[in-house]
């Protein structure tokens, strides 16, 4: 410690009796964070500027004449800081009491309850009883447009929302109007936040229940939600998110911090598009035989029969229709299986595309991409080619009338004629929903969505990112890598993959783009593969 502090670029200070060494220019608040000490704060947010106006992060610095705001006071060598000293605590208690003078304490009907910073801080350190006896001022609520509702009574005037729209979205649509206890946040024009494509983030950063999502309004309690680290499936940016689920249904998506991909943010398009994950009416059990003669079977029977057919047709031409919604594990194992049974003459995927990209100006890494699916780049690496038009239709003419082996994974074939695959010698459909175009399939195998399995996607930056299982699969649906891996192992010998990590390891051994990677190495933050050595 002692010698490293002499280096020019770091400083050593003492916080609450613990010595800590941090880079120069670190705020006291951050330095305390590295020690696991949380200094309460509202206006400070790591993704925004720090106006030091909420006055709750004040800490005692020995030698300073008065308490210092820890979010803008930079750590200096030899500083001795107390976050829990009597004066710091007394001050926080006083500030909290002021916050509650006009606060409605609506917690029973407030959507933030359970994850609210005001609730937490007051519960930890507030006074047991308030002393204000005057009537509270009442604003009611304001529809800000978009997905955002504003409850003025609950606002703590931290201006995070104002600064987000200004500094990050570069679209200053919110402001503080009036002064003193009449101050509220408001929009400039009637249109409010309508058509702002990143405004949903103000709901996430609001430390209290002042800004809430209309979509999530009264829907679930924060403590009832299971959080699963995942990847946004709605465009090829692959924002890191948490799936918040209750009763096996996704209730909302929240961004998960990743400074290499999405910072603290996500776009409104991605945030709003989760209902398809919850759609009912899934295929729940394997079906054997073409439509009319199809009967439900258990996995063992279905895979046994499928294996016999695959062995019979060894060496046939194989056409594969994949999906950019499928994981690398699924697509990769599918391609390997295709090569194991015959010659893959075509492997394609179809993807919906928009006209334009939609970047977040204040955080240029985050762009809502043109491809509205998470694994377009992964499919490319694994040998799949883009087919069809920008609304994910057409382009399957050759596959539709193919007379060899035809395998469809995840594409719902909504636009395809009913005789799709009628001429195929063997047609296998692995999907989540039944489709008229699957009527000629010899085998219909139910697979899981990304929310129901572990796996990886490759985003538009070439970053391999992991997602985890957050929901239970319906019926006997299984991850595609498990089904395909079992078939592959039966054909080629060897052990079937027991986990998505195993399936990925097999890909890493085969594809140079994944060489050296593993689920462990990818972790929760994702990893960019090293460029292959020539």
């Amino acid at each position, binding site marked *: 410690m002692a010698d490293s502090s002499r280096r020019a670029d770091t400083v050593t200070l003492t916080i609450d009796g613990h010595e800590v060494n941090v880079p120069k220019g670190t705020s006291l608040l951050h330095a305390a964070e590295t020690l696991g000490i949380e200094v309460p704060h509202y206006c400070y947010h790591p993704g925004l500027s720090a106006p030091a106006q909420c006055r709750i992060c004040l800490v005692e610095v020995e030698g300073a004449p008065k308490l210092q705001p820890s979010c803008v006071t930079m750590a200096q060598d030899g500083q001795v800081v107390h976050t829990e000293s009597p004066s710091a605590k007394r001050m926080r208690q006083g500030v909290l009491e002021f916050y509650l003078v006009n606060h409605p304490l609506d917690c*029973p009907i407030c959507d933030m309850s359970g994850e609210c910073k005001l609730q937490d801080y007051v519960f930890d350190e507030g006074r047991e009883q308030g002393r204000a006896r005057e009537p509270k001022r009442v604003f009611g609520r304001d529809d800000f447009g978009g997905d955002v509702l504003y409850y003025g009574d609950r606002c703590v005037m931290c201006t995070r929302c104002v600064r987000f729209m200004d500094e990050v979205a570069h679209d200053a649509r919110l402001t503080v109007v009036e002064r003193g206890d009449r101050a509220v946040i408001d929009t400039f024009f009637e249109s409010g936040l309508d058509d702002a494509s990143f405004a949903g983030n103000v709901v996430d950063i609001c430390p209290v229940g002042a800004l809430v999502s209309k979509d999530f309004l009264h829907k679930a309690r924060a403590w009832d939600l299971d959080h699963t680290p995942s990847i946004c499936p709605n465009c090829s940016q692959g924002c890191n998110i948490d799936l918040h689920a209750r009763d096996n249904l996704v209730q909302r998506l929240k961004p998960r911090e990743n400074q290499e991909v999405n910072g603290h943010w996500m776009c409104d398009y991605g945030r709003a598009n989760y209902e398809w994950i919850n759609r009912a009416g899934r295929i729940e059990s394997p079906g054997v035989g073409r439509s009319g003669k199809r009967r439900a079977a258990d996995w063992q029977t279905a895979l046994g029969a499928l294996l016999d057919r695959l062995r019979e047709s060894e060496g046939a031409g194989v056409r594969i229709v994949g999906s950019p919604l499928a994981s690398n594990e699924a697509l990769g194992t599918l391609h390997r299986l295709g090569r194991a049974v015959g010659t893959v003459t075509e492997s394609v995927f179809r993807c919906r595309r928009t006209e334009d990209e939609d970047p977040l100006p204040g955080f240029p890494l985050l762009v809502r991409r043109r491809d509205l699916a998470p694994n377009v780049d992964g499919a490319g690496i694994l040998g799949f080619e883009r087919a069809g038009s920008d609304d994910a239709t057409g382009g399957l003419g050759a596959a539709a009338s193919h007379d060899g082996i035809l395998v469809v994974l995840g594409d719902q074939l909504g636009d395809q004629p009913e005789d799709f695959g009628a001429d195929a010698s063997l047609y296998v459909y692995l999907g989540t929903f039944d489709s008229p175009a699957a009527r000629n399939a010899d085998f219909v195998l139910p697979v899981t969505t990304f929310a129901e399995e572990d796996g990886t996607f490759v985003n538009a930056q070439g970053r391999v990112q992991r997602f985890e299982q957050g929901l239970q699969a319906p019926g006997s649906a299984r991850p595609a890598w498990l089904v395909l891996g079992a078939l592959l192992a039966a054909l080629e010998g060897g052990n079937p993959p027991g986990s998505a990590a195993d399936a990925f390891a097999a890909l890493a051994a085969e594809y140079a783009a994944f060489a050296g990677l593993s689920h462990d190495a990818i972790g929760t933050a994702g990893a960019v593969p090293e460029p292959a050595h020539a």
Partner: protein
Amino acid sequence: MAISVKVMRRPEAGRTSYMRATLKGMSLTFKHLLRVKKVTLEYPEDQPDLHPRWRGTHRMEVHADGRPKCVACGLCPTVCPANCIRLVGGEDDQGNRYPIVYEIDEFRCIFCGMCQEVCPVEAIHVGQHFENAEYSRNRFVYDLDRLMEQDHPTTLLWDPSDPRSE
């Protein structure tokens, strides 16, 4: 090892009579016949006095305009150790948060009264009520309307003059 046998002799005839025991029993019977203390309650003509802290089937309090007092805060389903309360919150036409679905499965309920204790708006109560016969099991899942119709007295969870039982 040889088994040793002990021969028991029957008592003489005079000592095996049951007469004495019978008389003893009868005397107890007659004693109770003449005793005035009555313990049988002529239910249902006579109703028992339930203790003020008796915890029976639930009741939802209503506002004067007939709306349930519940604000769908989700605390009672959270605290309920039997996990027997189902709640789906929503917003009514006046912008108030209210329970779209509120159901209590009275069969799973263990009548601990924690739902009443936790409720921030004194909406849900356990009641001083015990007559719960029904013709089918599913009638024991009380929905919101049923809970609001109940008119039995609600339970006092503590003596208001001595809330801490001191």
